[in-house]
């Protein structure tokens, strides 16, 4: 795998009139990485992508590709290729013409173009479909044609703007694996934009979590999931239960938090906030639904939560129990279905147990909208 060309954003600001779309973004993307920008719609991730591909100029700061400042260089001169959200396949061109459009621009002969198209069609597993029109392909096939068209331009950086959002669930899951495979085969840098945390986690080497123009955290998927920096990152990526409270006592990397209903609970301070959170600060503790276990009745202590069960549901692979929680939100507990029998707890109080390493403490902040 080649080293690839890295992309760096330095103090990047993008404004539209008074509206700040991107606020002081600093990102280093290593060459050959699969890098995702993850955030809800309207958070500015597409804006960043357009700044990298050259469709808009940053208001401040720099976009560097392979160490070169890209200011003033148009999209047709940058070593990037963009896969649009709606794919933007040329409707009047056949598949092979679409794929080799970049060669046509360079003045390649038809024979040369056909040859390259056949190679790429083989790569995307659509051999012999070159003479169809895009409208005659299925959604997943169009998706792959768009990828082939972008790869045909031999970009150093491939930019993908939520390309899977239009596909149905099965196809989306299949395309995730396929995209990852293609990326590893060609070895170039992929920058991927998505609001789907599943996509980001499964495919990416590194993820930047964005909220309203600000990048909250840049890390690999495991870190983002297990050790979020902010309340937003914790609540946006995956399902999470929040407990609000004040820090009562800091004990090294752990802290005791005083909650309204559940009493004092112990939690691990997230890595980025260690040494920053002090006693008396408002804080939020996050525990994943799957990190709970049902404790024997009567158990109590700083890693036990007792709450009344409101309802239960069976989801197949997991059994979900919803209980009243702190601050109006329900607590969701997911117990893996291992063939054991489940009692119906509805209306009863149950005690839940968690391990301290699974409870993450971050400063109180904005939660992701559900």
């Amino acid at each position, binding site marked *: 795998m080649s080293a690839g060309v890295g992309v760096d954003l330095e103090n990047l600001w993008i404004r539209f009139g008074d509206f700040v779309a991107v606020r002081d973004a600093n990102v280093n993307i290593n060459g050959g990485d699969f890098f995702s920008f993850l955030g809800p719609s309207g958070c500015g991730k597409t804006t960043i992508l357009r700044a990298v591909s050259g469709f808009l100029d940053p208001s401040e700061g720099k976009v560097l590709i392979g160490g070169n400042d890209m200011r003033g260089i148009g999209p047709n001169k940058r070593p*990037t290729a*963009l896969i649009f959200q709606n794919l*933007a396949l040329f409707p*009047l061109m056949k598949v092979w013409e679409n794929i080799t459009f970049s060669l046509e*621009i360079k003045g390649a002969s038809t024979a040369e173009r056909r040859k390259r198209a056949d190679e790429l069609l083989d790569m995307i597993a659509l051999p012999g479909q070159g003479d169809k029109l895009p409208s005659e392909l299925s959604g997943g096939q169009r998706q792959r044609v768009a990828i082939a068209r972008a790869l045909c*331009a031999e970009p150093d950086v491939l930019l993908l703007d939520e390309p899977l959002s239009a596909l149905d669930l099965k196809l989306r899951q299949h395309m995730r694996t396929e995209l990852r495979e293609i990326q590893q085969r060609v070895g170039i840098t992929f920058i991927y934009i998505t609001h789907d945390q599943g996509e980001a986690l499964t495919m990416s080497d590194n993820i930047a979590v964005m909220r309203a123009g600000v990048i909250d955290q840049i890390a690999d998927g495991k870190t983002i999931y297990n050790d979020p920096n902010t309340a937003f990152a914790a609540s946006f990526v995956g399902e999470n239960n929040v407990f609000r409270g004040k820090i009562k006592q800091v004990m090294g990397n752990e802290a005791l938090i005083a909650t309204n209903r559940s009493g004092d609970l112990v939690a691990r301070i997230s890595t980025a906030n260690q040494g920053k959170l002090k006693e008396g600060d408002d804080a939020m503790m996050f525990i994943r639904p799957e990190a709970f276990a049902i404790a024997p009745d009567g158990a109590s202590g700083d890693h036990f939560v007792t709450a009344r069960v409101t309802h239960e549901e069976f989801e197949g692979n997991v059994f979900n129990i919803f209980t009243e929680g702190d601050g109006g939100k329900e607590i969701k507990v997911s117990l893996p279905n291992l063939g054991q029998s489940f009692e119906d707890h509805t209306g009863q109080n149950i005690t839940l147990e968690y391990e301290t390493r699974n409870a993450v403490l971050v400063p109180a902040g904005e939660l992701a909208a559900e």
Partner: protein
Amino acid sequence: MNNSFLRVSIWVYLVIFFLYLLGPLVIMSVTAFNSSAFPRMTPWECLTFQWFGELFQDQRILNGIKNSLIIGAGTVVLSVAMGLAGALMLTQIWPKLRATYYTVIIAPILIPGVVLGISTLVFWDRINRMLGLGADSFLSNGIFLTVIGQSTFIASYCMLVLVARLQRYDVALTEAALDLGATHAQAFRKILLPFMRPAIASAAVLAFLASFENYNTTTFTFGEYPTLTIELAQKVRYGITPAISALAFLIVALTVFFALLNEAKLKRQELVAAARKKATVEELAGKIKLPSFFSGNMAAVLLVVFAVATITVVGTATAYNPGQCIANVKEQKRLEAEQRIQELRKQREEQRKKREAEEAEQGGAQQSAPKPSNNSGFGNVFAPNSLGGDAEEEGSDSETPPSNNGGFGGAFDPNSLQSDQ
């Protein structure tokens, strides 16, 4: 019962509606084949193709057609280019200005063509003088002025057609092309222009037709290059002949032909697309050619019928000689005319006798001669001999017989005014 009444009324309405729409065209077309010197359907004299021959020998008409074609081509090029530029501008312009811009660009459609014609003439005349050029310069050339004058408003029509298509254009396509390394010019030529092609074709047809039929603007700007409409208008002032019906028939036939051609082509594309959808890739190559041209394609069938009819008509026209029939009709007319002259003479004779008798009695007489009666619907008030009175009777005897069986009594007949035909 109520329902069937409704259905019948709808059919009646449709019949009336299409009669209203197509009736004049049908009648005009039929008159082109009647040998009568004035375009009319009844009484039917002889089937003839002579008016087509006459049409193609009329240098003024031919010249008018030539000028119309040249001006039409020029207008198409200029209007489509300006319309496309205007349409592109409309999608690019700052949204707050868009409504204003739209109004400005649409305004020429609302301005009377006459005003456009005069203003074009005046404006370019000023420019011409400002540049110190003579009356024979390029800027005062009739073709140039007419193309410019017509394009001022035809470009707006084109823009409307083009904007409709452009609104369906996904800007991401241009961005995708740029992203893949194309320059703006390449993106325009390879992506936007092919996308706009159907609309450009429609706009071009529209522009050509609008230019071809334009009279109000052209009448001020044509200079030494009268178009077909101008020529027709000038001709009609001196009375029309069935040669003009023949021209009308040709235009109708050509229109129907191209409409059918277009329809058949669209239908065929549809069928091919349907076939492609069903077929797998392997089958495709062979299968597209297979569906016969006609299956489920009404327009194509009509087109073939039309072509066969054309060939038949042209074939008949070359072989057919209506000379005998025309001679018969002429003979008959001559007899009729003679008979009528005899009657007239008799009447006059009687009148004179009467008058003489009256004069003898009273001395002063009135001249109210009873009008010669024939069977025309208008009581022959327009007939030349009803006005000509006494003087005509001697001359008309030997020369071409005045044909006054028609509704207008031959008032428009060129023979009645000038005897050069």
